[in-house]
C-alpha cells in the first residue's frame, strides 16, 4: 500500500451502527477510498476497515467522530506503513479455450486460485495489497473481464488492538 491512512473500527455488528459510522464519514466529507466490514473476533462486534487518502490529523479527527457513535467500541487510525492491508478480488474472465493456458500462467504468477472454469472462461480469486490486485487486473487486460468484485482492504495494525479473551475467540471461531 502506498501512503494513505487506515481507520480500524470495532463496532456493534448491526446495520444501524454500520450506517451511523458510514454516515458520519460521508457527512463530514472524509476522503474515503474503501470500506470493508465483517465479523470480528468478538461475537456481536464487527471490524470495519476504512482506507482514507488523508493525513494523520484528518484520520484522527475521523476516529474521534466515530467514537462518538453509540455502538462504536473503538476507532484508531494508523499509517498504511504501520499495518498490513490485504484485499480480495474475484474476477470472472471470458477466454476462448485456446487461451486458457495463458490465463493459467497469469494466475500462477499472481498466486490466483481458479475457482471455476468453463469452456468460455474462468473465475479467479486473488488477494494482496491494493497495488498487487490492480497489477493482476492489468495483467488480465488482454482478456474480457465480465465481472470484478473487490472486497476493499482489511487491515491489522502492527501495534493496535489488545488481546482478545480466549473464551471469546473460541466462540467466534465455532
Amino acid at each position, binding site marked *: 500500500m502506498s501512503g494513505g491512512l487506515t481507520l480500524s473500527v470495532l463496532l456493534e455488528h448491526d446495520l444501524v451502527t454500520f450506517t*451511523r459510522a458510514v454516515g458520519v464519514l460521508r457527512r463530514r466529507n472524509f476522503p474515503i477510498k474503501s470500506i470493508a466490514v465483517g465479523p470480528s473476533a468478538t461475537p456481536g462486534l464487527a471490524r470495519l476497515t476504512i482506507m482514507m487518502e488523508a493525513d494523520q490529523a484528518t484520520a*484522527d479527527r475521523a476516529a*474521534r467522530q*466515530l*467514537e462518538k457513535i*453509540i*455502538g*462504536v467500541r*473503538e*476507532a484508531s487510525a494508523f499509517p498504511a506503513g504501520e499495518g498490513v492491508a490485504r484485499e480480495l478480488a474475484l474476477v470472472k474472465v471470458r477466454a476462448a479455450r485456446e487461451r486458457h493456458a495463458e490465463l493459467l500462467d497469469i494466475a500462477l504468477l499472481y498466486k490466483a486460485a481458479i475457482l471455476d472454469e468453463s469452456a468460455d472462461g474462468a473465475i479467479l480469486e486473488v488477494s494482496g495489497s491494493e497495488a498487487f490486485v490492480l497489477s493482476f487486473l492489468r495483467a488480465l487486460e488482454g482478456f474480457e473481464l465480465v465481472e470484478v468484485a473487490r472486497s476493499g482492504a482489511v487491515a491489522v495494525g502492527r501495534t493496535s488492538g489488545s488481546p482478545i479473551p480466549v473464551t471469546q475467540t473460541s466462540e467466534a471461531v465455532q
Partner: protein
Amino acid sequence: MTELLTGAHVMCRVLLEEGVDVMFGYPGGAIMPFYHALPEFPTLRHVLVRHEQAAAHAADGYARASGRPGVCVATSGPGATNLVTGLATAMMDSAPVVAITGQVPRNMIGRDAFQETDILGITQPITKHNVLVQDAELLASELREAFAIAREGRPGPVLVDVPKDVQNQKIEYEGRSRQHQSAARASRSVPAGSRLFPRACGDLREAAELIATAQRPLIMAGHGVLLAAAYDELRCLAERTGIPVITTLLGISGFPESHPLHLGMPGMHGEVHVNRAIQQADLILGVGLRFDDRVTGNTAAFAPRAKIIHVELDPSEVGKNVPATVALLGDCRTILRELLRAVSPRDCKDWRAEIAGLMKTRTEQYRGDLSPEGILQVLDEETKGRCTIVSDVGQHQMWVAKLYPYERPNTHITSGGLGTMGFAVPGAIGVRFARPEEPVWAISGDGGFQMNMQEIATMVQEQIPVKMAIFNNGYLGMVRQWQQFFHGRRYSATPIWSPDYVKLAEAYGVAGWRVENAGQSREAIRAAMAVPGPALVEFLIEQEANVFPMIPPGASLSEPIEGEPAPLVSA
C-alpha cells in the same frame, strides 16, 4: 413484583421515573396508544403545540433553562418529520432533548404504510442517538438509556421511535429497581468518545505555565460554561489571573457583563476591540467552545500570535477548527477547578490597559428615535435584570446579544449553531416551564416571528405567560444587510409584509401593543409585564438599521466593517 402493562403505560412510567413533569407534543394515529395511557398519569403535563417543530423547540428551551432533558412527542410520518428542525437545533447547541415518536406497526414497516417514514434514517445525523424499539420488553431500558445519553457527556437530542403495536403490547413490568440492571442495560456499550482520555498532569502543568507566562492572554468562554454551570469557577479563574473574558454567543450569561474583566462578544458581529484583542493575544484559553466560523472568521488568520489551550468535553472538537497547543479534556467545571489550583495569581494590568486603549465608544447610529439599543435598555430597566431572554435569529439576535446586560447565569437563550429562525416563541414556552417564577421574553424579528406565531394559541390554551417582543423592520433584516453590503443593495425577496400584530394578538385573546416611538416603549413593556398571561409588543424599528461592526464572511477578524457602506454610484 411485576405488573402486566402495555408498552404505552411503560413509557409513561419511565417518564415519571425520569422526573419528567412536562412534555410538548401533538397526537396522531401511530402514537395514540401513548396518548390513551397519558391521562392516567396526571403529573405528566402535556402541552399541545400547534406544530411539532414547536414541540421540539419547547423541549429544547426547557432543557437549556433547566439543565434537565426536555421531552417532545409526535406521531409517525409528518409528525416526526416536523420535529427535524428542532432536533437539529438541539444537536448543534448540545441541548438534552428526548423525542418520542410513534411508528407504524412492526408488520407494516418497510411497506410505505400510511404515515410511515424512516425517522431513524432521517434523524441519524441530527441526533446524538436514536433507536427503533421493536419489542415492549426493551422499551423501559431503551427509554432510560435515551435520557441517560441525552444528559451525559456532551448533551444532545435522542429520538425513540415506538411502533404502534409495541405501544399496545402487554408485558410484565418490574419497575425501575430490577429492570434498571437488566440485560439490555448491562449490554449497553459505553460510547467510546465519552470515555475521557486520561488527563496527563503534564498537560495541566503546561497550561498553567502558559497562563503564567503569557503577555496577552484571553479567556474565550462558550456554551460549555453554561452546560457545566461553571460560572463561579470561570469568575474565580479570571479574577485570580486578571485575564479578560470574552463570551461567545452561546457563552453569553456565563460571566457577569458588569464585571471589569468582561470584554464582550467575539466574531462576525463582535465589538472591534474584542476582535482586535484576539488578533493580538499570545494565549487563548478557550473554555467550552468549538471555535465556530462565526467566532473565528477566517481560521487561517485567526489569532495568529496565540497559543490555544482548549478546555473541552468532546474530544472530537479538539483540533477540528483550530489547532490546540494544549487540550484539557473534561467538563468545564472540573477542568477550571483543576486549573484554579494550578495557576498562580497575576493581574495582566498592562495587557488590560492595552485593550482599554482599543476601545472606542461606538454610539449606535439610527435614524429613527426607536433604536434597538433604547428598547433593550428600557427592557433591562423594567425587568430590573430579572428575566430570561429567548431570542430568535437575525439582526435582533445580535442586538439582544450585545445590548442587554446579562448579569445572572444562563439568562440568554438562543439558537446559535443552526441559526433557526422561529426558535424564540416556542423556545420561550419551554423556558417558562423551567422557570415558572421568572419573566420570560421571546424576542423575534418580523420574519422569525411569522415562522412560529401559531404558538400564541398554545400559550393561550395552556396559560403560559410568555411576553413576546417583535422587532419589526419590514425586512428579513440580516439577509437585507448582506444584500446591502455584498450584493449591491439588490433586496431580493427580503421585504416582508406583516399582519397587524396587535389585531393578531387580539384575535388570539392576547394583549398587544404597538410601539412607534421611543417614548412609548416603557409604557408598553410595563403593561405587557403587568398582564397575567401572554402579551405581545411590536416595535416598529428603522427599516434599514444595520448590525455593526461586521466581519464579512470568510474575512479575518482584523477586517471589520464599522459603518454604513458608501452609497452606490449609479451608472
